[in-house]
């Protein structure tokens, strides 16, 4: 604040108790993740092509896209396990992958990364220990995913959906500020799925930022912001309601690239980014005809209709 120190600042601090607000550009304060011209290659294969977006803090952001669109790569980049080929990703004010972020960012990969030969409790306890969390946090995390009755069972003896929940508990135990979840509700029955989404909502209300990838449109409607990814390009960042309207009005089928001057406005909320020319008439851009070859299209397309 020293840059703007003055009588006004002092009054502001006294009134709002927010004297430690960092002196950063306005859109950074509301964003947990800011990507600028983010390009990622897997080996030589380009996977993400110059993405610009911001993920608002304390909200649930959905990451939608067909299989192979780069969702997992984007998530791994934000978590810091994937090297960046170009551009920047800032997570909680630091470069993605910074050592300090390891305490604050939780990641649940698509395939459950737990030890099958350990009990549920031992798994959660171990990952908790990596964040110096104790018994109370372990019990809380297990309860959060509804696995208390199975806490002493080996992960190998559980069903696929249950193992997914163990994996989630291993991330929850750390109480991360940013939680990145790759298809967390796959293999869960509808009741459990709804329970988890209620928990995500509660976490977001408590200030946690969540980035959740999903295939299921019903889940997209539970997010506050959506990132639509296709073939490594960001089609749009919008709200579920907007996606619905656009789907109905077929607006997504009209490519409309923002002018280069608009890139800096890549903040939360509605922002339209047209698809690359080659994909303009395919997939979820096309609300009229959903026959693009991958089954998810139908769900995306019919959601707003």
């Amino acid at each position, binding site marked *: 604040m020293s840059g703007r120190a003055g009588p006004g600042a002092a009054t502001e601090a006294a009134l709002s108790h927010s004297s430690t607000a960092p002196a950063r550009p306005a859109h950074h304060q509301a964003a947990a993740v800011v990507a600028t011209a983010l390009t990622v*290659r897997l080996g030589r294969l380009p996977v993400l092509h110059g993405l610009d977006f911001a993920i608002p803090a304390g909200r649930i952001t959905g990451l939608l896209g067909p299989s192979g669109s780069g969702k997992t790569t984007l998530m791994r980049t934000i978590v810091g396990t*994937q090297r960046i080929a170009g551009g920047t990703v800032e997570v909680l004010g630091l470069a993605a*992958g910074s050592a300090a972020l390891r305490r604050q960012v939780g990641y649940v*990969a698509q395939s459950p990364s737990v030890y099958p030969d350990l009990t549920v409790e031992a798994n959660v306890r171990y990952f908790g220990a990596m964040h110096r969390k104790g018994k109370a946090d372990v019990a809380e995390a297990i309860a959060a995913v509804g696995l208390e009755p199975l806490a002493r069972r080996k992960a190998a003896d559980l069903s696929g959906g249950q193992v997914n929940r163990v994996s989630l508990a291993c991330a929850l135990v750390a109480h991360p500020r940013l939680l990145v979840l790759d298809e967390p509700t796959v293999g869960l029955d509808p009741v459990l799925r709804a329970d988890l989404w209620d928990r995500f909502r509660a976490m977001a209300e408590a200030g946690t930022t969540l980035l959740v990838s999903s295939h299921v449109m019903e889940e997209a409607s539970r997010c506050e912001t959506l990132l639509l990814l296709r073939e490594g390009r960001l089609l749009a960042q919008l709200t579920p309601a907007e996606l619905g309207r656009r789907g109905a009005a077929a607006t997504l089928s009209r490519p409309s690239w923002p002018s280069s001057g608009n890139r800096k406005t890549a903040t939360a909320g509605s922002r339209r980014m047209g698809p690359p020319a080659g994909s303009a008439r395919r997939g979820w851009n096309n609300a009229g005809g959903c026959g693009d070859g991958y089954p998810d299209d139908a769900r995306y397309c019919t959601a707003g209709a």
Partner: protein
Amino acid sequence: MDIRMMLATARRVLSQLRHDHRSIALILVVPALLLTAVYFLYENETLRPGVPRTFDRVGLMMLAIFPFVVMFLVTSITMLRERTSGTLERLLTTPVHKADLLFGYGLAFSLMAALQSLVATAVAYWIFGLDIAGAPGYVVLIAVINAVLGVALGLFCSAFARTEFQAVQFMPVVVVPQILLCGLFVARERMNDVLEAISNVLPLTYSVDALQEVAAHTEATDRLWQDASIMAAIALGVLVLAALTLRRRTS
């Protein structure tokens, strides 16, 4: 380094092992059985007066080779599973230091190696009357250092395998040459220059040499400590190499 994270890792590795009865048997029971086989192999040998039993030489060296082989096998598979299951990547997104992980592994398997060595050494001494000059404590010490060596090499080699099948393939490449050239079959000074030079850089050589020192002298000799130091240094060096294979970021 964070001692608590290292201990948590050691505890986790041990409880994984505890659920795996076959591995426990491999570590604790199999060496004693193999030692029994070695004893009966040489049961009927005719000895000239003054010449020590072959069992006293070969059985003793087996006490150094078991922990090396077994820990290499168990560690390389365990670590490979960690790499392929995604748990390693997940761990590396947490604040845990690579050294906490590697030393946690080292600690857990050293404890198992100490147990293994106690069982095997006890069998050699009390059942088969192993007759050497030095104290059994030194035998256990060398066995434990050897186990750490096996752990370090296992952690390192697992980086170069994609499947458990490939990991097992490192056995004939990494382990068998060391057994051939360590001085068990042919005394090192009687090898040709090339083989002796290779033998000089293989860590198992030093543990066999150390055990021969224990066998020949009642007190610990300088050469014993020198051998032990060389083995410890190699183990540490390989652990550092293993740490380099743990990447927090992939490209």
